[in-house]
């Protein structure tokens, strides 16, 4: 007897009866590629040959956020799964329409909250593209350096939480110990640990001073040592490999057709990274590799993310060397498109007026202008499609967030997997629900 036939959702649930009914109805009617047990015809139900519908609700110990999965199980095998997201939906796209471009910056921090600097840079670049603002060189190098540090921070949390969910709790503690070093750097350079908002449209808000540079340089020396230690522990670890090899295999065609992005795409052998596909900031002037694997399983993605961390260190070192010698402004010098410096605001009339006007109205891209700009966030391709109506607030912002597109693939990966692998699968796809639910 199906769960739809035996349950009167309006009676059993006080809240969202139509929503839950829709989910379970979809679960029943879904055509899965897993062979289902043939149903008996009226004979007494044998518990060993029965399917169970399990709801792995929005609140669960796997720390990847509020994701709900309704699964139909045959023993331990997941036959069909339906993912329900939206538990963190805010209506960011609607909020964006009532804020100016600069006012929206703090909202982008809270999207992928593991690497907030990347989101800031993505938004700034998208606005700069639609308004045609040129960013000075020093600002671009600073943004690139901090974005790569944010990438390391996001991958560190992936590693810590993924391994903790799999059972190895110590890795969580080590990862967070290093993340605290990164937070100290962000605190010094940008003023805040997590929600930085350091990028401004047209550049960055403050320059990186010597203390900040010294802290970053020290990090580039201590991090590889710790990283080598984890590699030594995990790369040939029998338990970790057994838990990951062959789990969540995504073939090349599937990855492209389902629109996976980021390390999920590169784990299946597709060489697609926005830093090489559509170079932004100064990525075409630094030397780094893009890790690529062919197998498409969870272990391949693990290797890719670990290697990406070391590639980011490489980029950060090159940025540090460049920033020693490259001096210059850190924000565009156009009062209509970016904030004047604080000196100008305090000591000149025009500066004060420009500051006020910029906060009040802000950048006004040409009416009817619409463009899309993507970056390679740690999770994948993060892009903003902005349509402007000539005023200081956008007419439409569409956020193409990597976690949203990756979660579609997760639904496919779950089918055929064992229950125990579910945590590994969620970890390997690495969703951030704040970003996926906008």
């Amino acid at each position, binding site marked *: 007897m199906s769960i739809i036939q035996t349950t009167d959702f309006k009676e059993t649930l*006080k*809240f*969202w009866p139509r929503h839950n009914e829709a989910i379970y109805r979809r679960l029943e009617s879904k055509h899965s590629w897993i062979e289902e047990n043939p149903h008996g015809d009226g004979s007494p139900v044998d518990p060993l040959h029965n399917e169970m519908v399990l709801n792995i*609700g*929005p*609140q*669960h*110990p796997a*720390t990847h*956020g*509020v994701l709900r999965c309704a699964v139909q199980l045959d023993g331990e095998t997941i036959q069909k799964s339906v993912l329900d997201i*939206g*538990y*963190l*939906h*805010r*209506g960011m796209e*609607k*909020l964006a329409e009532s804020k100016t471009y600069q006012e929206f910056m*703090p*909202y982008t*921090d*809270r999207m992928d*909250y*593991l690497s907030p600097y990347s989101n800031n840079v993505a938004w700034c670049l998208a606005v700069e593209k639609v308004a045609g603002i040129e960013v000075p060189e020093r600002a671009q190098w600073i943004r690139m350096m901090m974005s790569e540090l944010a990438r390391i921070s996001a991958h560190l*949390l992936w590693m810590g*939480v993924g391994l903790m969910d799999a059972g190895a709790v110590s890795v*969580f*503690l080590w990862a*967070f*110990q290093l*993340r*605290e070093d990164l*937070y100290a750097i962000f605190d010094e350079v940008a003023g805040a*640990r*997590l*929600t930085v908002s350091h990028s401004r449209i047209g550049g960055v808000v403050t320059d990186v001073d010597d203390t900040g540079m010294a802290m970053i340089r020290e990090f580039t020396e201590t991090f590889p040592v710790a990283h080598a230690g984890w590699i030594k522990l995990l790369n040939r670890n029998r338990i970790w490999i057994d838990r990951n090899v062959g789990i969540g295999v995504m073939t090349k065609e599937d990855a492209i057709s389902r629109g996976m992005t980021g390390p999920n795409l590169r784990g299946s052998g597709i060489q697609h990274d926005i830093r090489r596909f559509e170079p932004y900031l100064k990525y075409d002037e630094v030397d780094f590799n893009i890790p690529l694997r062919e197998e498409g399983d969870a272990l391949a993605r693990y290797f890719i993310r670990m290697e990406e961390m070391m590639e980011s260190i490489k980029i950060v070192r090159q940025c540090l060397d460049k920033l020693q010698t490259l001096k210059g402004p850190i924000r565009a010098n156009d009062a209509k498109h970016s904030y004047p410096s604080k000196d100008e605001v305090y000591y000149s009339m025009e500066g004060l007026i420009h500051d006020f006007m910029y906060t009040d109205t802000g950048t006004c891209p040409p009416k009817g202008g619409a463009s899309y700009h993507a970056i390679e966030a740690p999770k994948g391709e993060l892009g903003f499609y902005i349509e402007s109506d000539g005023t200081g607030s956008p007419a439409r912002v569409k956020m193409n967030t990597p976690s949203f597109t990756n979660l579609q693939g997760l639904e496919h990966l779950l089918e055929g997997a064992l229950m125990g692998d579910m945590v590994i699968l969620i970890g390997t796809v690495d969703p951030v*629900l*704040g970003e996926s*639910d906008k």
Partner: protein
Amino acid sequence: MANDSSLSEGFLTTRVDAVVNWARSNSLMPMPMGLSCCAIEMMAFAAPKYDVARFGSEAMRFSPRQADLMIVAGWVSYKMAHTIRRVWDQMADPKWCIAMGACASTGGMHRCYGVVQGVDNFLPVDVYVPGCPPRPEALIHALMDIQEKIRNEYSVGQDGDFGTDHPAIAPVRPKVLSPSGDDVITPGGLYNQ
């Protein structure tokens, strides 16, 4: 020793209270309702640098039956609110709630259709932590506030309000003076009916 029944407030019960409250406050088991960015700071608060284990709250229990402190960390959407309330109802008494961050306290920067403007609209919150996200030290301060609150409770003696329904308390509105400054006028509007 009191002349009344053994359950009313007396020397023995206050001593027992002190012990029970000491035990409860130093072994709070948080149920981390970690929803978004504040959850990352909550993980940092459990991590080595701002170690919360030294306050006794090392055991983060994800099952509501085993926890007594719920930390709502992150913005609560209307869809998620019912789940949180359900989890809260499953927690056994005595239980406390921390609304961590601006979003859980008042809706924060998210003044829009999807976000509940403050988790106290459906949960009885004990401590609010401001910040977006609050530093782990702020969350430790909130934990210490809860510990202080617990130490002042009547756990055993029945003189407290434990178990009774609280009637709805109307908020105190400031008195509005007339232009001459003499009388108090009753302003109209939604909140003054």
